[in-house]
């Protein structure tokens, strides 16, 4: 009896999970199929698998538009911003989690409280600041804005993880002769890698896909990032649905690669502390 009940429960769970997977992955698979089909094929039958795989569309999308420029702009801005956020936020989180000093919790609260404001409300002031310091329409300006925007959540996630690392480890390192910076470098970073991987993925995806600040703070065509490029691509090829799908897929590939690379560590980070 209990075996039948268990099988039913499992079947129900499978149905729910399959439904959710189809719901979540369906649009993505549909776009990826469209990216390999021509627009006339799509117009004939939007919901089908490709009869022939038109891989050459990727080369066309890459070479006939400015995709390569946008792609490298995005890659540079995202890589530098994610790297800087990871280093600065992990150091901040290490200090807040590890050292007792006056104002520790106040600083944490101030950083944390910025999370509740929608980033759009700082748009105008950021625009003015960037113009004043000659950073408007520069990649450096955009990178600095991304660092500032991603910092609170990153510090919050990392501080939560780092503060659970036992103090004895740091005391042992201190007795072994390691300085505060070496403790950060040799203990916090390697032990905190799962949490750091989580923030790297979240920040990478967010910055890679970021549109609003990029569209306001970048004006020149050659400095556009990929989300702006895709928008331009839409405008240029309004009728060419197949090519738009190909362009979208190109923009998604780095995110998938980053996810595959860091996902194991990220899952460790998400489940850390859940089991003994």
């Amino acid at each position, binding site marked *: 009896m209990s075996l039948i009940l268990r099988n039913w429960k499992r079947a129900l769970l499978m149905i729910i999970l399959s439904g959710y997977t189809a719901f979540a992955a369906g649009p993505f698979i549909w776009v990826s199929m469209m990216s390999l089909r021509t627009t006339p094929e799509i117009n004939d039958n939007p919901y089908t698998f490709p009869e022939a795989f038109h891989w050459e569309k990727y080369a066309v999308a890459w070479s006939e538009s400015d995709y390569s420029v946008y792609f490298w702009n995005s890659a540079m801005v995202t890589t530098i911003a994610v790297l800087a956020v990871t280093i600065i936020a992990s150091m901040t989180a290490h200090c807040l989690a590890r050292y007792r000093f006056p104002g520790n919790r106040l600083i944490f609260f101030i950083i944390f409280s910025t999370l509740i404001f929608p980033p759009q409300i700082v748009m105008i002031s950021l625009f003015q600041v960037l113009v004043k310091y000659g950073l408007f329409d520069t990649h450096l300006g955009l990178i600095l804005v991304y660092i500032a925007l991603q910092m609170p959540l990153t510090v919050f996630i990392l501080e939560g993880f780092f503060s659970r690392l*036992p103090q*004895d*480890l740091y*005391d*042992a*390192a*201190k*007795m*072994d*002769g*390691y300085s505060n910076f*070496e403790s950060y470098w040799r*203990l916090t970073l*390697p*032990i905190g890698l799962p949490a750091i991987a989580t923030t790297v993925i979240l920040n990478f995806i967010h910055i890679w896909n970021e549109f609003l600040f990029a569209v306001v703070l970048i004006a020149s065509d050659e400095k556009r990032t990929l989300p702006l490029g895709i928008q331009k691509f839409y405008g240029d090829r309004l009728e060419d649905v197949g090519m738009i799908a190909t362009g979208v897929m190109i923009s998604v590939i780095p995110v998938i690669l980053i996810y595959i690379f860091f996902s194991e560590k990220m899952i460790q980070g998400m489940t850390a502390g859940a089991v003994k």
Partner: protein
Amino acid sequence: MAAVKLENVSKRYPGSQELAVDAFNLEIADGEFLVLLGPSGCGKSTALRMIAGLESITTGTLYIDGQIMNHMPAKDRDIAMVFQSYALYPHMNVANNLAFGLRRRKVPRDKIARRVENVADMLGLGPFLGRKPHALSGGQRQRVALGRAIVRDPKVFLFDEPLSNLDAALRVSTRNELVKLHQRLGATMIYVTHDQVEAMTMGQRICIINNGKLVQLGVPLQVYREPADTFVAKFLGNPPMNLFNARLEASGDGVAARFGNRVIPLPAMDAAKLTAYMDRTVIVGIRPEDLSEIRSQDRHEHPNSFTARVAAVEALGAETLLILEIEEVEEIVRARFDRDSTARLGDEICINADVDRVHLFDPESSRSITCR
């Protein structure tokens, strides 16, 4: 190896009114194994951490080998510490855990390898050098933590309750290993514990701490037999010493304790030194093992015997612990009898007190006034 000396050392944490450690004066000889013993939160770990350099010293002076260490960074004190949680670096294997401290001290690679190998052999860690801490048992982790301290060949070893995470059997064997290790290395070791069995069996001297104050310092049996106050009397010994209020009276040339209508002479006490307490209430203490069961028909041979009702029996196999109620005293009485005791719950039995082993304490200061 080195001698350690604490001179009026105190610690007050920021924002706290209380002293965590209150004016410790303590000298630990070169090569000595000293145990700091006390209940949780008494300040023993804080004292150890101040010696290690992990906590600052609020007032007082710490000397190691005659040198003032108050402001010396932890890394320069040449001290190794074994933590309660072992504090093994989870991302490094056993070999790297052992070598981590030596690398920072710029010890040549071949020397590090040799020392790691020696310590691994000494502690039986050879087969586990490539494993990470999560793949080791509790006992193995404990040995790695110990090895990490030994490999540095420090002047002083500090142990902060290193056995408390081990199971009972492993604790006993590791206790013996630590004693052997001390004999072998001849190093100065300071060991913090709240476990009186560890203190009694391992320490050459034990230092009892309560509420941040050093209460008594001495060799284990001396502290057990001559507790300085009622705290030590109750803290050391399991079951703890029985303490009763009684009136001290003159009895011929000597003194006697009055419990209600019963007057029990205390022939071992020096009456001349107790004159200040005559006709006053004092605290009388007797250890459970100094009470013995006698047959009721032999009672007339034991003028210091009492009739007691058995309120609880704990037959432990090797011995039998009893909780007794005696008409003459308000407090319950704990007794330790041998394993052949036939006392059962609710029985009335006769017990005899070994009056030569009775302790006396001042009721106000709780300090011992025993004078034999």
